[in-house]
């Protein structure tokens, strides 16, 4: 994939692999992101991986667009295998009662039983595509086709943090009380904000996410553990 380099203001470069979403483009984004992390070009401050492109932001006092571009071009040459080093992350979900206000609607829309929707969700092959919208909002690909449902016509307000929500092929675990038009099918006790200063967010872009079902009692016990851990 031949990337396009576009300057963004005085302090960033956008490297785009494709105009449309594809696994190949996303794999290229992650491979470049990981290559940069392993060998940070002079003056580069941070990178932001997204679906088809990667933003590389830099200090314009120390470097400029063309110096960063030429460094990245060299890095890209060595990236033919595009091997992604993602980690498996386990996330518990409770699909019961008030935690899953839209489970019934998803079941109705897809012609499945609620139990079948849950099992399909658990069977999904989820990967972290990118973060966006709000702090810690990791967009996951991999909702199985039989349970893909469109966004609601209007967002619902005050959806609690920890909600497991789906829309189309994407799934997300919310980290804040926020409005959402996605379908709420469960609640997770697994903190995305880890509280660990060395690794403050549970996922890195490219990680695989495995959902595990827990009942209400386990959910509550896990929540308590987290809260106690923070003390």
């Amino acid at each position, binding site marked *: 994939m031949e990337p396009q380099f576009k*300057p963004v*203001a005085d302090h960033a470069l956008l490297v785009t692999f494709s105009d449309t979403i594809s696994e190949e483009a996303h794999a290229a984004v992650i491979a470049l992101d990981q290559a940069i992390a392993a060998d940070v070009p002079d003056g580069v401050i941070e*990178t932001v991986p*997204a679906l088809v492109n990667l*933003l590389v932001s830099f200090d314009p006092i120390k470097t*400029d667009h063309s110096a960063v571009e030429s460094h990245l071009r060299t890095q890209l040459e060595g990236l033919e295998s595009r091997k992604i080093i993602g980690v498996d992350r386990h996330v518990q979900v409770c699909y019961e009662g008030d935690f899953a206000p839209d489970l019934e609607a998803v079941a109705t829309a897809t012609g499945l039983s609620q139990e079948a929707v849950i099992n399909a969700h658990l069977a999904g092959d989820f990967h972290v595509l990118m973060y966006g919208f709000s702090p810690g909002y990791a967009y996951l690909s991999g909702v199985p086709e039989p349970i893909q449902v469109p966004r609601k016509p209007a967002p619902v307000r005050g959806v609690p943090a920890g909600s497991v929500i789906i829309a189309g092929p994407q799934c997300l675990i919310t980290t804040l009380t926020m409005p959402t038009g996605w379908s709420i099918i469960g609640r997770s006790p697994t903190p995305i904000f880890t509280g660990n200063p060395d690794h403050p967010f549970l996922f890195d872009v490219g990680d695989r996410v495995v959902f595990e079902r827990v009942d209400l009692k386990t959910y509550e016990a896990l929540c308590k553990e987290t809260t106690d851990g923070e003390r």
Partner: protein
Amino acid sequence: MASARFSVSFAGPLVTFQDAGRPGNMRYGVAASGPMDRLAFGAAHAALGNKSGGSAIEISLGGLMLQCTEGTVTVAITGGDFVVEHAGQKTISWTTLTVRKGEKLAIRAGKAGSWAYLAFAGDLASETWLGSQATHASSGFGGGVLQSGQALVVADAAVREEREGEIAQPEFASDGAMRVVLGPQDQYFTATAMEHLLNEQFTVSDAYDRMGMRLNGPVLEMQSALSIPSEPIIRGSIQVSGDGVPTVLLADHQTTGGYPKIATVISCDTDRLTQLRVGQKIRFTSVSSQQAVDAARDDAQQKAKYLDQISIARGTLAQRLMRENLIHGWADD
């Protein structure tokens, strides 16, 4: 050293704790936040002789009223043209003064500007998140939004009489059109839209907060209805929604989004952009990416020089009087 305490008698909306921000977390959906006007924020600390980047209070047009309940501390107020009332005296922002126990300090919207900064000679305490006190307004993470009734604590509060008085305002910032680098999606817009962007005036709308500033003006049409994959956004990105209305993303911007970006305001012009108010006019002019880098370097140099200058203590009143006398003495000879 002693601490100083204040009680917040009144805080308007969007009055927040801000430090230099938390860069490096955009990949996790976290904008850097930090002050809307970074130059004015830096000036407040410099004028007090503080190290740069510490916590201060960003004051919106809603204003802030404090009462000192304990201790004595020198403070600096910068940014825009706000009205400052202290112990019965009225002045404008860009001033350094000492607040004593029992005294009131009020900072209100004045003739111009949208954001003022209040820094203390000491360490202003607040919550931190990801190692920074900067408030991310929509989540409330970081130091947070100030509330009426809240107490403020300044540790190691110092009195720096030799720094009291007016703070010279920066004069180097350009006051013309906002400089932008076109793109990264300028190719999706009609030629007319590009002409409008660079030749017409826009007006700051009332949809303006720490996340961004929506502009009224000519519609910026795309060549076709367009849906681009969500991609990274930075401070200064001008994204255009489906109805052709541009929004400049600012300190608490979303980190990714699916609206095309017609252009990006260069970093050294975002400070003065944020000081505009609803109804004020704005123009854009295009520069090349290399011109943008040159401008950033030039601006950084001038900014460093300016901050150095205002960080020199002018001397206490007694010292200043003595200096004046000496000068007069020489003149009389």
